[in-house]
């Protein structure tokens, strides 16, 4: 891997303003897990004007449903899940102060618009690299929705979690730009 930018969570506007598509980052600090079912619940809380189970301002959500940890393991295999399924819910969380999302795959225009407007960034982690990414998790605790099992919201303490900036606050998209570069008509 080439030069990486070290990012420490929580993220400020200043942190995300300097990030550009293609930047490789190593994330350290706290990130929260959440995928399909947890997003639906968070979204419902926002719609009802209720408080979220954690303060989302400046935070990063990782779209992941890990395998159960083996005895002696801190966290099970944990690569990103495909992000578009969270597109319906993401803009309202971004509006509430969410600064980063980690997943894989393209986002909708509505999510990209919300990222531009409220200064948030979307990162891709390598899909399928679950065993490798699990090693970056140093501590994991369930903070909400334990009944959802793998889909529960967990607070992770990560160290040098590798990701790449796919959507920046200027509206650029690495999927579009990267693919254009290698396409042959």
């Amino acid at each position: 891997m080439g030069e990486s930018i070290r990012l420490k969570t929580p993220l400020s506007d200043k942190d995300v303003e300097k990030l550009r598509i293609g930047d490789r980052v190593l994330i350290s600090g706290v990130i929260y897990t959440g995928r399909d079912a947890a997003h639906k619940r968070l979204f419902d809380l926002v719609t009802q004007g209720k408080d979220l189970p954690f303060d989302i301002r400046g935070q990063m959500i990782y779209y992941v449903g890990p395998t159960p940890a083996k005895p002696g393991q801190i966290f099970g295999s944990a690569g990103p899940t495909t992000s578009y399924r969270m597109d319906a819910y993401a803009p309202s969380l971004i509006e509430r102060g969410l600064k980063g999302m980690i997943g894989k795959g393209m986002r909708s225009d509505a999510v990209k618009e919300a990222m531009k407007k409220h200064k948030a960034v979307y990162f891709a982690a390598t899909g399928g690299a679950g065993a490798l990414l699990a090693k970056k998790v140093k501590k994991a605790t369930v903070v909400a929705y334990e009944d959802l099992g793998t889909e529960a919201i967990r607070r992770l303490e990560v160290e040098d979690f590798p990701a790449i900036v796919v959507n920046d606050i200027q509206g650029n998209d690495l999927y579009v730009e990267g693919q254009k570069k290698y396409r042959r008509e």
Partner: protein
Amino acid sequence: MREIDVRLITEQVRDLCIQANIDLGEDVLQAFDRAIEKEESPVAVDILKELKENARIAKEEKVPICQDTGFAVVFIELGQDVHLVGGSLSEAIHEGVRRGYREGYLRKSICHPFTRTNSGDNTPAVIHTELVPGDRIKITLAPKGAGSENMSRVVMLTPSDGVEGIKRFVIQRVKESGSNPCPPTIVGVGIGGTMEQAALLAKKSLLRPLGSKNPSSELDQLESEMLAEINQLGIGPQGLGGRTTSLAVHVLMMPCHIASLPLAVNIQCHVQRHKETVI
């Protein structure tokens, strides 16, 4: 008649669930190496190396390669001279899946379609049984992740669409799937039969080892042509751009009705898992 106790099948299915999820096949690792040699994008090369490293960690530490340990898809080739004793074959398979996913610390990903309530033990399995000559049972376990399965499609083309129509649909499917199915992918294509048979052919085509040739020269050529076109799309590993959008295209074909041309495209992510055993 050879008697086989179904409890033996439960044990084998259990072991296959665990092995398939932690030990990526040598054929896939070799396909990564070939891709690294050809790849022009530095980001793509890094990703392919990361995938190799991930497979090494999974195998060494006996942990799942990917957190999506999949739907347990089980292919059974049952010898017609086998007499199964000790209970139901299906229940024996489900029990093997239940134990494999629990004892192997694999993720349970199966839920009720409406309420989304998790079954809690990754059952039921999807079981495809075929009767074959002989007195043996071959069990193949192919856990299937949803990221790539969601990008799969079945279409009933018209006969006039022909081979060109087939190619167009397959390539368009890969293009539209973009970064979602965790490229580099393997594209399984089923042509002919009926609607459900085409889908099954597409799934079965994925069991062929990567790097092996299609025994039919006609289909071998079709596979090469489609792969070349797919890898011009520029999608690349993880959709971040590059030469390696797919590692292979595999085609299985059978005759179809005079009025139809069924086509199924089953996309498989780079974690191409399958293990088999013969009892």
